[in-house]
């Protein structure tokens, strides 16, 4: 299930349309993940406040969104562009990679709530594939 040229085109076009709200998208996705999949909170015990509007949640969402924007621009070399982040997640954070799929699902739900008309099945599929490819790139250094 690799990204076709068409998938990349769709991802770039959609992300260009929505990137103005990228920070909100990221923040809402992280907030949603912590509420809907509370087991993910175990990775954030060092934050005093895990509520949806808290500063650490919004900041982290902003970081996630910025990484996605960067990855969209480097869509032809995801493994290369995410190498450092992969090392961070593998050796320092040690996040179980199964959680990448969970965050991806929450990103897709947020996009559906914010852009119900633009988030067509074709866009949904291309983004689902792109986020899965991102997750794979993030898992590269695990073992």
């Amino acid at each position, binding site marked *: 299930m690799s990204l076709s040229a068409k998938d990349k085109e769709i991802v770039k076009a959609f992300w260009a349309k929505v990137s103005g709200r990228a920070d909100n998208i990221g923040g809402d996705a992280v*907030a949603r993940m*912590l509420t809907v999949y509370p087991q993910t909170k175990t990775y954030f015990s060092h934050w005093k406040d895990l509520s*949806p509007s808290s500063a650490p949640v919004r900041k982290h969402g902003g970081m996630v969104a910025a990484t996605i924007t960067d990855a969209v621009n480097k869509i032809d070399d995801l493994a290369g562009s995410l190498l450092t982040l992969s090392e961070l997640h593998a050796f320092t954070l040690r996040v179980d990679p199964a959680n990448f799929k969970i965050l991806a699902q929450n990103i*897709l*739900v947020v996009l559906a*709530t914010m852009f*119900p008309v633009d988030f067509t099945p074709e866009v949904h599929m291309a983004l689902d594939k792109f986020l899965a490819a991102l997750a794979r790139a993030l898992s590269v250094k695990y073992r």
Partner: protein
Amino acid sequence: MVAWTDFERATIKDIFSKIDYEVVGPAAISRFLIVYPWTQRYFAGFGNLYNAAVVMQGLEKVVKNMDNIKATFTELSTLHSEKLQVDPDNFMSCSFDCLAIVVAAQLGKDFTPEVHAAFQKFLAVVVSSLRRQYY
């Protein structure tokens, strides 16, 4: 037995009262047939996708029987396992994740993280009941 909080019960009833089954059913099914094309293998005999409203009616039965979901779904579980022979791993990852997205698109900002969490729990219980008759 599933323990539902008052918020969860009220939220599930509210979601089902707000969505249009004739729209959401076919939209969810056609979405997952596009996003996860391998699921098309199960739908050669399904007929007109507008019959997809029956899926929503099945879910509505559950909303009316939230304290006895296992029994409500025994027949449907047997149908999916013996007659339709659907790989149960498809239930959550393909169908219900897509349904959550279609409902999210309909409800917009009303699909808050708390509402989403209640709906996700509801879908997890439905999936577990649908899996029960597989052996």
